[in-house]
């Protein structure tokens, strides 16, 4: 195996910039939409919503991959507080554009992309290595478990 194949991502998705910049890290993926106010503890970056599949888990320092934002108009302010507390995600990848997700991405000042050519929720799993390039609108994915990828 050459060095090139080692560093080449398994999957590359192309979409549109929400906020520019580049970040690379471990993915945290959910199929549940995320509430800000009443759904997240900004001081720890932990999801607190009852029955949420990420309940009790923190997105701090992760690449957060989720369908979209929901709930109260306090969404951006809660994620903004998470940034101040040092608990923001490294980057965000999401499917449905809303004013909440747009403004939240802007005030967290983290790379964010949407409108990808394939569904990131089908292709990214928690634990995968992901590089989000907001300026180019790309998401590069290195699967944590290569054997799990269907041919």
């Amino acid at each position: 195996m050459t060095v090139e194949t080692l560093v080449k991502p398994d999957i590359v998705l192309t979409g549109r910039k929400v906020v520019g910049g580049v970040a690379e890290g471990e993915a945290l993926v959910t199929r549940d939409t995320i509430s800000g106010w009443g759904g997240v503890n900004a001081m720890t970056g932990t999801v607190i919503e009852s029955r949420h599949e990420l309940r009790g888990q923190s997105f701090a320092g992760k690449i957060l991959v989720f369908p979209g934002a929901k709930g109260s108009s306090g969404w951006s302010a809660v994620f903004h507080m998470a940034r101040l507390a040092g608990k923001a995600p490294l980057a965000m990848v999401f499917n449905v554009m809303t004013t909440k997700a747009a403004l939240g991405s802007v005030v967290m000042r983290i790379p964010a992309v949407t409108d990808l050519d394939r569904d990131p929720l089908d292709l990214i799993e928690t634990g995968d290595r992901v590089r989000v390039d907001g300026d180019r609108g790309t998401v590069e994915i290195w699967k944590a478990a290569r054997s799990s990828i269907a041919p």
Partner: protein
Amino acid sequence: MVTLTGEEQAMLDGEQGPAVGKAMELLVRYAEALDAERFVETNNVAGVPGSSTPWLKDYYKQDGGDYRAVFSKFDLDSDEVIDVPRMNAYSCHLQGGMDPTLWAEQGMTEAAHDNFVSDEAQTAAHGIQILKTCTPYIAGNVPVMGEHCAWMESSAVVFCNSVIGGRTNCEGRESTSAAMLAKRVPDWGFHRDEYRLGQNKVDVRVPVEDVFDWGMLGYFVGDAVQDTIPVIEGPIAKASLIRHKHFGAAAASSGGVEMYHMVGITPEANTLERAFGANRAEQVFTYDAAERKRIYEMLNAVGNSTDVDYVMLGCPHYSIEQIAYAAHLIEGRKVSDKSALWVFTSRAVKATADANGYTKTLKDAGALLMTDTCSAISQAVPKGTRVAALDSAKQVHYLPAMMGIEGWYGTTEECIDAACTGTWKGELK
């Protein structure tokens, strides 16, 4: 890329001062995140400008730790602290953290109250109207059809779009504070005709008449259509401000409904064809007796003990019509010593309640009429509360989960009865 007019470019270049420049900078970043092509002008902004907890002031201690620091660095997301002038748009402050006089009863500390008083003085000094309510549309800010607004508060947003025909997205704190200065919001979403058309259909098969049933239908609709725009058709009667208020708040809580159409009722849905326009219903949902029962059980899923020690009315904030009715129901009765009754409204509506004697009627019965906030917003319930009774689907959605208590959903009559007897006897009729 967002295209700026000459005036917008000048604002961005700082020609109207550094605060407007920073506001425009944030709005451009926001418009680009949304992929909006231009801005619309707005002169009706509702938000929570500059208000902050002591934690936030402490965080910006090195920048002065005051309103100016919070407004610059948090509201405008600016790297520098700048002077914040009077707002340029007609602006109002939505709900806040405590009652201005009954804060001690709500369990607030003196230090928290001092912070509240100082923030409010700054809000007023910046020309922002102290409406302090989630219902600006019954406290002095009623948009007109087609008016471009920039509002926060999901229950107010859905009312503005659906019932009035005003145009607003569900804005956030930073975008509303910036819009108060720059009088602009991105031309995206509900500001555009094509975005306001129906996407899903809801067929109502049971009569929906009183506030209790309008609230349950709202909760069903949000749960069914999530954040899409529903077109609702069926035997829905007695449409009124309070019914729409409870319906919209519920639909925005169980789903994320920011606009709905009711055929023959709401202004952009005089016919089914008008409501859908070029769209076709992606899905059709049916609300019948079985669904009504399912929603009632869902709303009462966190109720177990019938010993009610707290009854909260006023989510969204009660209108004067509702306060008059609550006062009528409780007149000559007493709140049980095992229970408490708090009713929430805006300061504007409370002034009328005072004049009409309703505040006194409630007080004589052992209930309190409070303003500015609610139990969910301020996380304030009477000490020792374990079981609450509520006449709002939205409040029963949030409060028990936030406070770790049990909750019942019922009619206003059932709630007042529970407050006076200490026992929940609600049932679905």
